[in-house]
């Protein structure tokens, strides 16, 4: 049993179990610590509250774009919007893998993106329909010529740049003795970087094309990704699943719904 076999066929149920345990642990603390208190609110029109809800989510993005361009480009655009989110959820290989583990995920196959702009297999721009024993291929992808930009190679490079930007930012702040910089900041970013680099290497059969190395690198990539899933509820990656949504909804409730600050 090699690393690839272990990560694809053995570990997934344990990973999911630990992830769910972590989620239950984190959520249960919020439920247990919830204190019901009487509130007084200021009445405001429903439409204004709805607009306020949208603005609650958009305002920080606008502020970042206006006042901190490096964070907007490096942190938000490269790392989140162009990099990690489409890479994780829409890269063709990932859609195939997730669909194997969780068949309903195949509903997203029409959105899948190829791994490379120059070898656009699995997309509309593919010159030759791939030979595959799978019951479906990705030729239905809707992206068409956009795959010149929307492809794994480019997005991986952008995401790596985003992670490096964040690492550099943390190192700079650590060098200035900022007390909010923690070891956990670096471990989380380094894990993300390792996942991106091993994924890129596996796609390009690097550092060598032999099957043993390929299976090891791909297995390592999946194992690291599984580590991230297990760690997610216990680390700052949790913001993606819960912290962001809860935080902004609570802010809207507190400031706009309750206090009427519109």
């Amino acid at each position, binding site marked *: 049993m090699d690393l690839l076999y272990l990560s694809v066929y053995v570990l997934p149920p344990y990973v999911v179990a630990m992830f769910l345990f972590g989620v239950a642990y984190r959520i249960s603390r919020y439920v247990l610590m919830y204190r019901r208190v*009487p509130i007084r609110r200021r009445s405001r029109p429903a439409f204004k509250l709805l607009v306020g809800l949208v603005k609650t989510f958009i305002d*920080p993005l606008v*502020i970042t774009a206006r006042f*901190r361009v490096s964070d907007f480009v490096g942190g938000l655009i490269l790392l989140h919007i162009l990099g990690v989110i489409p890479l994780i959820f829409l890269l063709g290989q990932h859609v195939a893998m997730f669909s194997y583990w969780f068949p309903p995920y195949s509903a997203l196959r029409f959105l899948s993106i190829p791994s490379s702009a120059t070898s656009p297999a699995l997309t509309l721009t593919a010159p030759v329909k791939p030979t595959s024993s799978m019951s479906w291929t990705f030729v239905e992808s809707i992206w068409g010529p956009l795959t010149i930009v929307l492809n794994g190679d480019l997005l991986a490079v952008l995401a790596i740049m985003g992670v490096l930007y964040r690492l550099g930012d943390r190192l700079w702040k650590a060098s200035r003795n900022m007390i909010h910089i923690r070891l956990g900041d670096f471990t989380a970013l380094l894990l993300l970087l390792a996942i991106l680099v091993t994924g890129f290497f596996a796609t390009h059969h690097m550092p060598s094309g032999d099957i043993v190395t390929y299976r090891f690198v791909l297995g390592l990539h999946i194992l690291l990704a599984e580590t991230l899933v297990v760690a997610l509820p216990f680390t700052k990656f949790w*913001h993606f699943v819960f912290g962001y949504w809860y935080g*902004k909804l609570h802010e809207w409730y507190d400031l706009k719904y309750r206090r009427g600050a519109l």
Partner: protein
Amino acid sequence: MSTWEEFSFDAAKAGARAVISRLDSVLLHFVENCVGCALCDINCPYTPAGEEYGPVEKAEPLRKVIRGQVFLAARILPWLFSAKLPRSAEELNRWVELAYRCTNCGLCYTTCPFGIHSGVMIQHLRYFLAKSGRVPALLKMMIDLETSGNILSVESFGKIWSELLERLKGLGVTFDRKGARYVYLPSLAEALITPGAITGTAKILNKLGLDWTMPSVPLSVHAPIASLVGDSEAVLEITKRVAGYVTEIGASTVILSDGGYPYRFFRFDAHALLKKPLGFDVIHVVELLHEAMKKGALKLREADQRITWHSPCQLGRMGGLIDEPADILSSASKNFVKLKSHGFFSKCCGGGNGIACVVPPTVEMFEKLLGGSIPIPEKEKVFLDKLFRDMLVASKAKVDEIRESGASVVVTACVGCVQTLHLAGKVYELGVEVKTLSEFVAELLPE
């Protein structure tokens, strides 16, 4: 009196336990969901005074305290999860420096991509620090005075209040009248710093023909002043005192003219602390004016000056009254101009959360009033001097906005804002008149 040179690890541990007992789901979110992006730095008034004064950095000491007490992994591996209590007087004093660079204006809250209110965390940090023996002397004096309930035990305060009462009697004001529908609650701080707001509000309430009364003695210095150091027990005591007075009068509504933290607290937060409704409504005089003008029941004479409105953070962003004061002023003067940042993201004056009330010029003002010096330890004096310099840096953006507006009068509605704008305006030679909204509107009431 603390000399700011002692340190007791046992006191720090007791402080940590006291803070932990307040942990609820909202505070838990604030503590654990920060990813350290530091975007909150962008709008914090204190970041220009030093990158170490950004909200994420200032809230970190509280996170260190809570992590070590609450999270299992952090208890086992504190160095890995950055969980620790201060270990020396120097470290504790450094935390004090951070905690007193926060005006609790809420700008970090609205800027944070995760809705984390660092200001609330810093209030809890101040509580931890108070339990560890660090509260600015003047603030402690005022908290003790307010908690004692005998506000006028200080002779000079009694004299100022009596003179104010004489002026109010001349306006036909009745005191402690049972059965009145409205109770107006001015504080001692307003009598000392913005007396015009009290007489102005009295004139407005009379003009509106309301059935109102007010206490013959101030119920508070600036209730609940203990909230500035996060002391919920003392805050609860003063809240009960105020609620008891209003219930005794039998009024259905309390009117405030101070749009600082007293308004935010009594309007929105007191119920949660009491764990039951107050039993009466709390409104700001701005709301009465806005309603009356909207209905056409009040029309002001027009002012000639170019005026602008500085929105107190606790009245606007944290209190929900953003457009109402601007509406009133725009109908009072064709020369009303909004400040550049007017609205939900209105800039803070830089002196809120008790900062302007403890800096050296305010200490000197109180020393004059009290006729003697306030005993302040040397270390605290150094702290206060630097705090004043940093407060002026934090105020600069607001001062610049006011200057750019070209206004000759800046109207606001908060004792802290008035004090800050006076101090900063003097240093930066702003050359504008600072008036409270009640004072300004009262001058424009029709005959």
